[in-house]
């Protein structure tokens, strides 16, 4: 398998389908109506893996869209975090929902449980900014 070239291999699904895998490791070709009928597609397969999102981040970065690339890298960190945890973190980041300690706990949990360093950094920045504007709980 040759390495991914973000400059020339987008759309990845078309130009490098060999690099795209579902969370359980199937290729795009496996995701057919027939296989769905046959019950050989596990639940929750129709989502991007962290690896895929990192490739998309590379595509955005080489297209000189740094912030979109950063966002896609954060998305890669969130890809394996359960829906309900994501909704909890979102709520915690809303104005006056969390104390500085709450947010620090979220940041630690993101780092230790999910290796989500960029998300943790975003949460810590939020805590510092909220302190300046009286938006902590």
């Amino acid at each position, binding site marked *: 398998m040759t390495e991914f070239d973000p400059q020339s291999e*987008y*759309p*990845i*699904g*078309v130009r490098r*389908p060999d690099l*795209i895998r*579902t969370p359980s490791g199937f290729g*795009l070709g496996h*995701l*057919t*109506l027939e296989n*769905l*009928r046959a019950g050989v*597609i596990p639940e929750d*397969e*129709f*989502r*991007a893996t962290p690896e*895929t*999102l990192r490739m*998309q981040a590379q*595509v*955005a970065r080489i*297209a*000189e*869209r*740094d*912030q*979109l*690339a*950063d*966002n*896609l890298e*954060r*998305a*890669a*960190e*969130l*890809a394996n*975090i359960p*829906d309900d945890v*994501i*909704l909890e*973190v*979102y*709520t915690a*980041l*809303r*104005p006056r929902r969390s104390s500085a300690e709450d947010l620090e706990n979220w940041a630690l949990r993101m780092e230790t449980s999910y290796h989500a360093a960029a*998300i943790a950094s*975003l*949460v810590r*920045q*939020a805590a510092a*900014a*909220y302190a*300046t*504007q009286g*938006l902590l709980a």
Partner: protein
Amino acid sequence: MTDSSRSRARSERGLRREAIIEPEPDLGLVTMNGPNDPEPELTIVNGVIVRMDGKQSDNFDLIDQFVSMHGIDLEVAVETMALSDQEIAMRLVDVSVPRTALVRLSRGLTPAKMAKVVSKLDPVEMMFALKKLRARRRPANQAHVTNRKESPALLAADAAEAAARGFAEIETTVGVARYAPFNAIALLVGSQTGRPGVLTQCAVEERRNLQLGMQGLTTYSETLSVYGTDGAMVDGDDTPWSKAFLASAYASRGIKVRSTSGSGSEALMGHANGCSMLYLEARCLALIRAIGSQGVQNGGISTVTLPMALPGGTKMILAENLIAAWLGLEVASGNDAIASHSPIRRTAKLMGQFLPGTDFVTSGYSAMPKYDNMFGGGNYDADDLDEWTTIQRDWQIDAGIEPLDEAEALRVRKLAATATQAVFREIGFPEITDQEVADAVTSYDSRDMPDRDRATDVEAADLVFAEEISGVDVARALDQAGFQEIGEAVLGMQRLRVSGDYLQTSAIVGADWNVVSAVNDPNEYEGPGTGYLLEGDRWNLLQSLPHLLDPDTLNPPVSEEPAKVTVVGDAMRGSDPSEVVVGVGPAFLGTLRETINGLRHEAVMSALAEGVASCGGTPRFIRVLRTSDVAFIAHDAASLSGSGIGIGVQSKGTAVIHSVEQEPLDNLELFSMAPLLTLDSYRAIGHNAAAYALNQRTSPVPVELDNYARAKHIVQTTFLHATETAAVEVGAAPIEFVLG
């Protein structure tokens, strides 16, 4: 003082229901260059921004903090902040400075600088810059599909038709929040019936919205509202950090994200801090790029009427779109909420986005009549579709809507409603009746739809969240019910999430599931003949309007049967002083047999003869062959007339009373409104011609005037006149003839 009737008529127009005011800068009611806007500035010390747009970093609010940390490329900033506003403005309109160079410049600009630069441009310059800066090569459009009854069959039918009309994205929302899952499902099934690959969303409260996306029932989201001040942001129950997190959360589930901003919202929410709308919007846009959103819908949006109440409103709205494109963002450029009561004013505003082309020319064209638009939208709606496609044809502009044949519209509407009925049955939702399906195909709006049991509906809709019914379940239900093709398409939408290709800027899904975005199909306009050109198959498609008339229906019926006329011989000059010579065109009672008003030529001749006789004159008929021009026909007739008075009549019915003493293009009376001329008119024309011949006093024949006649008949007139002209025999002498 009594108002004039004209002033009263103007005051009763829709426009005058709108409040138009002087600027009130302290309330944020000023469009651009507000007196309280900060001067652009940026101070960087040791790689950190310590001062920006009038504030020291320890006074930075949330937005300043986020933008200074994530939104400005410090290396580029050193270079660009040193350039004068004028220099940067010049580059925006300089055709030799490409888009990529301008987007790079923007990475180093503060919000105040962007607002200052853009406000140096006039509207045409802004349009040119926007054409240059649009991210995706080809413009597209987005539709709204909603209805007041939240009828799933009607939602599906409308979504299918919108998809078949070429909308790249379709957005729905709810009247009652609990309906969201049903509406999302109806939209998903409907859209994929109309055209596989159309992206859909259901705009509801952020958390619920994310849930729908996670379950694969929607593929994009533009609910990420951003405001230009902290006060408005916090009232919206968010911060730059919660928005940034949300943007990442959506992307992590393979959902395309677009933010929403739009001037006027801060003032409306009481948090404008005395700043101009454009400056606050520039702050929004800097923040939107900083949080990593790929795009924005802006340009007034739901508060569009507020900037439009102020001087320069329309221009400022265009400036907003321009800044967004300049920042490299995908732009869905408003024109969704009703901008004015006045159709003239709405369309004047629209041209700012329509002519340059944006990624989505509207951020919600109402696919159904505006009565059913639950977004406060309907600036353009289902009733306006033919106008929209005709205006595209007029300007040779692709604004993202394709003409659609009625039979095809009905077919996809029915298929979508039936498929949605089947999905509801398979999953065990409350029944969609056959009557609902039938009504959904042909209804004008939801008032024509049967009522549903709403209590049962919302209870069942709750189960979609509780049981996590997903897009895959919808595909499975379609498959089980025998709708394989639509099932494949719904599954295709799920599959798109696995590669994440449509997370890139300005992505839409073209034919055969090909993702088309600013990455693989960027706008590379660099002057005439470059960039997106509407030509070839696409131009043919956009020209072929269903209301195009078949030329065969316009071509006059050509008669094979010889007319019942007898040729007397070459027309000679008469000597009878009571004579009126009627000259007819070369095709009269030849290849043509009736006027544009459908009057048989024989009847026209009889009416003219009766008219002449009724005043004591003597009619004589000649056919002029050398010309098809009515003035020359009449003048030829007059010159052969014993009295010197003649009448000219073209085959299409246009008539003139002429005197030999006049110049050919002068006349005594002209009757140019052939479509309005009746047999009585021709009698009156004959009467007056005889009166001139006999030197009697007469009033001109009263003529009807319809200034729309040309708009209605000009094409048909051209066809008729072409036939007449084809019958001209150059140099031929006129011939005299009689009926029978």
